[in-house]
Each structure stands twice: as structure tokens, then as C-alpha cells.
């Protein structure tokens, strides 16, 4: 393991300082044989933490693998990603979560923390073996049927209660299924004009309200995945004001894009939950700024080209996000003056690490003695997003061709560079 001297980085966007990495940790001074990185003008942040990615392995290795997904994550500045459970087979047993966890260790570019399914086979009828997954080598703490809503109120209540025994959290994909039968696009002016079946915000809000009340009733921890509407923000703000154990995430795309992009019926803009309106985008930004929404999570959802080169209604839901998340947050939140870089570190590393019960090893301060997991980010360049340059196996980014600020220059995982000069190491 090499030692490093990172010269002139702006730690959390503050004054320039030198950082020293020795034996995987930050040190007060340069270690022996230390290699020097000129980080003048670069912003140093803790390695980013993603609570929500679809790495597709096992089962859909044509869309993504743990290897390619963690490469994408490293290029995006991430040092840990949570891998969602909707693989094939579903990550609903200790065996599958350990397999995913081990694949991440072997890839070595970023930690992979599996999310366990709440219900067996994501079927929504019977709890998966949550305890076995918690006690496995993968040490699962977040459980989610993401892609499906745990819509049965009793089952949701039991799940919330059950995981209290091992400090777990249920991450809900809030989507009332009967209100979203065949739904294609946010229900509003665009869906009416385009003749696409409407996806009402109330289908999300009704489940969030119910689950906040359930979490309060049983004193359990609830996390809300990919909040997309202004109404959801209001409910979460209210639940937090009661002191209930509710946390929430927002995706980069919901911070920047609206349903008006669906006008040409290009399914690259088809996502679950759907892109909503400018008013919703503004409410989400405000909520992330004031802390009502705790963190940014990518919902990185890779799909092969043929799943998107179709009619809108039969196309797959989802967008890639790992390689663009920090740049999008820069554009949506920093350029607009809503967050400073220290707050970006909080929303993209510190708080998600806490929600994932990873605070001991991720989202740490960049100070001597701490594990040296960090990202060096150049805020200056403005370039068009080029999907062909992405490490993800899939190209379904809604930001293709969009000019966004910033570039990840380097990512370190516990002192080892995974990205240098904007390129993958190895």
C-alpha cells in the first residue's frame, strides 16, 4: 500500500490544505515514500455513499455486473454502494446477499453493501429471513423490496417491528399499487396531453403517510426511497417534526429533470417514480437543503439498449446515475447556492452512511487517524455528459449530451486509489 501526499486540496470546499495518507489512513505528516498528487483547486470530500443502486448481478449481467457497477461507482466518487435486492435470484437469503457482498470485495473498487429483500421473492406476502441476512457476512441492515412497494399494511408493520432487534431499517418504495396500475408518467398536464396513463403523486404520498404513522406506532426506523413529489416532502417534514425515526433520499434526476422531457416519448426519461413537475423539483431541492430529505441516492438502474429503444409503454423503468450524481448535485444544489460543499459531503456521504449503519467506516471526517476514503473533485470544467465513456455496461442516462459542471479526478478507498486523473486504476 502506497503512501500519498495530496497537495492543496480544498477540504469540504474550504481553505487549501495538504492531506497525508499513510497505511490507509489520514496522517498528520507525509509517510515514507509518499507519492504526491497536485490537488490545487480540487475539492476533497469523504468517499461518497450510495444507499440505492441496482448492480443487476446475479441475473442481468447484460445490464450491469458488480464489477462494472463498482467501476462506475468509483468513477462517480463513491466508496460504498448499496446493492438493491431485486436481482434474479432475489437477494432474500443469507446466501445471495453474501454472494453479492463477496463479488464486491473481489472487484475491490468500492464496498458493496447488499440490501436484503423485505419479503420472500419480493412477492409482498411473507417476510424474508431478515435475521439471517443481518447475521450473515454481509451484515445487512437496510431491507427493501425496491421496485415493489410493501403495500400490505400489516406486513409493513411487522417488518418495521422485526428489524428493531438488529438495528435494521426498512427502505420503502412508496407506490400504492392500485393507484398506479399501468401508470407511465406523472399524472398532470403532460400525461393528459401525451395520452400516457397517469401516475399520481398521491400514490406515493399515501404510502409515505401510512408508513410514517406505522413507524411511529411501533417505534421503528423507516427510510423512504426516491422521494419525488412536493406532497411527499410535506409529509416527511411533518413526521420529522414529531421526532419520528424517518429518513428519506432523493435521486439526482428528480433534482434536475421534469416530466416535460417525456414530450418526445423517449423512454430514457421513463423512471419509477416518474419525473414530476418544476414545482416538485423545487420542493425537493429545498427539502434536501433544509435536511428534510437526508441524502442523495442514485437509484442507478442500468438497462440494455433494447429495453429502451422501444415504445414508451413497454420500455423499462430506470436511469443510470452513479457516474453523474455528483455533477448533477453540483448543478442542482451548489450552483444554485442551496448547498455548500460541506453540506454536499453531509448529504452524499455522512448521512447516508449513518442511515446504512456504516458510520464507523464511511462518511468519516478527513482528519488524521481516520480511514482515507475520499474523492477529489474538480468543480471547474463544464462538459457534455458522454455515455459512451461510462464504465457502466448500460447507456441509459438522461443526462447524455447535457452540459454539467465538474469532474471526479480521484477516488481513494481506505488509502488505495480506485480512480486517478479521472480514470480507473487497473
Amino acid at each position: 500500500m502506497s503512501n500519498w501526499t495530496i497537495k492543496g486540496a480544498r477540504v469540504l470546499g474550504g481553505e487549501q490544505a495538504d492531506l497525508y495518507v499513510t497505511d490507509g489512513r489520514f496522517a498528520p505528516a507525509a509517510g515514507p515514500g509518499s507519492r504526491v498528487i497536485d490537488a490545487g483547486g480540487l475539492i476533497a470530500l469523504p468517499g461518497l455513499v450510495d444507499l440505492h443502486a441496482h448492480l443487476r448481478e446475479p441475473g442481468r449481467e447484460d445490464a450491469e455486473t458488480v464489477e462494472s457497477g463498482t467501476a462506475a461507482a468509483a468513477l462517480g466518487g463513491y466508496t460504498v454502494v448499496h446493492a438493491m435486492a431485486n436481482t434474479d435470484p432475489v437477494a432474500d437469503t443469507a446466501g445471495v446477499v453474501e454472494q453479492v457482498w463477496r463479488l464486491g470485495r473481489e472487484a475491490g473498487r468500492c464496498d458493496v453493501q447488499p440490501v436484503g429483500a423485505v419479503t420472500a421473492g419480493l412477492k409482498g406476502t411473507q417476510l424474508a429471513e431478515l435475521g439471517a441476512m443481518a447475521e450473515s457476512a454481509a451484515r445487512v441492515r437496510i431491507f427493501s423490496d425496491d421496485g415493489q412497494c410493501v403495500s400490505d399494511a400489516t406486513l409493513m408493520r411487522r417488518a418495521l417491528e422485526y428489524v428493531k432487534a438488529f438495528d435494521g431499517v426498512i427502505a420503502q418504495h412508496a407506490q400504492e399499487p392500485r393507484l398506479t396500475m399501468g401508470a407511465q408518467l406523472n399524472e398532470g398536464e403532460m400525461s393528459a396531453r401525451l395520452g400516457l396513463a397517469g401516475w399520481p403523486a398521491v400514490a406515493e404520498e399515501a404510502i409515505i403517510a401510512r408508513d410514517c404513522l406505522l413507524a411511529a406506532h411501533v417505534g421503528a426506523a423507516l427510510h423512504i426511497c426516491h422521494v419525488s413529489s412536493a406532497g411527499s416532502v410535506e409529509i416527511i417534514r411533518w413526521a420529522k417534526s414529531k421526532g419520528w425515526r424517518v429518513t428519506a433520499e432523493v435521486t439526482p434526476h428528480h433534482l434536475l429533470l421534469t416530466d416535460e422531457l417525456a414530450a418526445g416519448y423517449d423512454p430514457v426519461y421513463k423512471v419509477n417514480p416518474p419525473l414530476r413537475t418544476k414545482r416538485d423539483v423545487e420542493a425537493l431541492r429545498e427539502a434536501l437543503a433544509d435536511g428534510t430529505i437526508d441524502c442523495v441516492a442514485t437509484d442507478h438502474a442500468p438497462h440494455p439498449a433494447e429495453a429502451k429503444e422501444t415504445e414508451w409503454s413497454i420500455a423499462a423503468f430506470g436511469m443510470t446515475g452513479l457516474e453523474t450524481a455528483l455533477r448533477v448535485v453540483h448543478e442542482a444544489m451548489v450552483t444554485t447556492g442551496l448547498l455548500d460543499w460541506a453540506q454536499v459531503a453531509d448529504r452524499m456521504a455522512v448521512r447516508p452512511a449513518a442511515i446504512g449503519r456504516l458510520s464507523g467506516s464511511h462518511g468519516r471526517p478527513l482528519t488524521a487517524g481516520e480511514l482515507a476514503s475520499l474523492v477529489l473533485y474538480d468543480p471547474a470544467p463544464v462538459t457534455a455528459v458522454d455515455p459512451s465513456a461510462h464504465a457502466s455496461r448500460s447507456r441509459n442516462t438522461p443526462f447524455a449530451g447535457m452540459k454539467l459542471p465538474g469532474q471526479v479526478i480521484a477516488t481513494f478507498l481506505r488509502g488505495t486509489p480506485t480512480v486517478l486523473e479521472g480514470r480507473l486504476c487497473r
Partner: protein
Amino acid sequence: MNRHLISAADLSFADAVSILDTAEELARLAERPIPKLPTLRGRTVVNLFYEDSTRTRISFEAAAKRLSADVINFSAKGSSVAKGESLKDTALTLQAMGADAVVIRHNASGAPHRLAEWVKGSVVNAGDGTHEHPTQALLDAFTMRRRLGHLDGLNVTIVGDILHSRVARSNVWLLKTLNANVTLVAPPTLLPVAVGTWPCRVSYDLSSELKDSDVVMMLRVQHERMSEAYFPSVREYSRRYGLDSDRMALLPDHAIVMHPGPMNRGVEIAADVADSKRSTIVEQVANGVAVRMAVLYLLLGGGAAQ
């Protein structure tokens, strides 16, 4: 005029009037002993139909043939589509065969937009999902203008399943462009939540709208909407939103009754209304050929009618 006809909303006033005027010229052609023009000789028009729609397909086929185009009918049933070929691959195949225009009917809203990205020829939307059916709106406008002499300021009441109707959408945009006044009448469940953003009035009460209507257009209501709880029963729908002879008597003398077909007699329209002198239903079919000729002529032939 654009290269494609995908949405009535894309038509300018001048485009729309040009289509209607050209259709008027071409309709006269039908009265000649040999109702055929050489305009599109050597051009290929593909009818790409993913939904059964005999009347629309035949209408486009007749229109293309009267302009001497070569017509290829590509039906989704019994073709490679049934084996799961994607729209993109079908489009590339049609492109390779040199289609100058593709007339597409598809059950997915937006399919013509997608197709237009993959073929070089003109795309004509012959009905896409619950989005639009622009040539239907054009033939409706043509029919109104022929019967009533003008469109400007006309009060047009469209009744039925607006939420799922591509005919209603195309009519709302086209009639707005042509300066007619549209009122939509439906049970609230069959209107889009955001219908307030459309350039039209909305009413839940059919009878009260009829005395000021110059045109009343009845839309087909699908029986399966009942099982999806959009309304309690077909009988209740018919009582509240159907056009029977009692309601028809509320219309001004000059008013006409339209229906894009196929009708559910006894549901949205009573048989005696459908067969009355006010009814334009058969004319609409005949006018459809002239309007579709005009569209193909203007998209492929270029320029206004001589």
C-alpha cells in the same frame, strides 16, 4: 408543413386550412369517371397497423391508391411482429424497402414519434394509443366545414371517454387552431385530472350543453371501463351521457351529430339518432378518404393543390 403528421397540435392554422382546402379539391375528383391522380406514382406508402382497424386502414389504402402510390399493408398479426420483432427493427426493414411514407396505427401512445426517429420517410399517425388520431380530427373538421360552411366560432361539444380518446385529443388541438369553441362533456372519471390545462370548456351535464351546440360529437365508450369503475353501469352511462332523440331535440335546427365510429348503438348514441338527418357518420367515412389523400399529397407531393 412538417415532414410528418404525428400530432394535430403540430399543425399551424395555415397547414390545417391547406389540408382542408386540398381535400376539398380532391373530393371533387371522386365525382369524375376515373377518380385517380398520377401524383404519387412510383412512391411507396406502407400501412403499418398494430391494431385491428379495418376502416382506417382501408381509408388510407384508398387514399394512397387514388394518388397512384404503391401500397404495402403490413399488419402486425401474422407478421414478424407477432414473433416479437421490435418496432425499431420493423422500422429499419421498412426503411430498407424504401418506404416514402409510413402510416402507423399502434396501441402505444408515442409509437409514431419513435418510428419517426428510425425511418427517413414521412410518418403519418393513424391513431396511437390514447394520444392522438390527427387525420380523424381533420376529417371531422372537414365534415363540419362542409355541412355548416365555416369553423370559426363554431361550438363543438365532444361527449364521452375523453381520458382514453385519441380522437378527442386531436380534435381539441385542431379545433382550437381553427378557432372553434370546444366543450368536453364526460363523467369526471373519464376526464384527465389536468383537463383544465386544455384549451376548452368542460361540463358534466350533457343536456345543458346541447342548446348552444352547433356540433355534438359522440365518442365510443368501451364496456371494460365499467369493470375499471369509471362508471357504475352501461345503462347509467347511457342515461347520463348518451344521445337519444329526446336530447337530440334540444339541439338547434342546424346542428349536426358526429361519431368517429365504430358506434355502440344504444349506449352512447341511440339508433334513431345515428340514422337521423343530423347524423354525418357516413359522410365522415367518405370524407376520410379525401382528407387522407390531401395529407399524403401534401407530405409526399409537396405544394398546395393546383
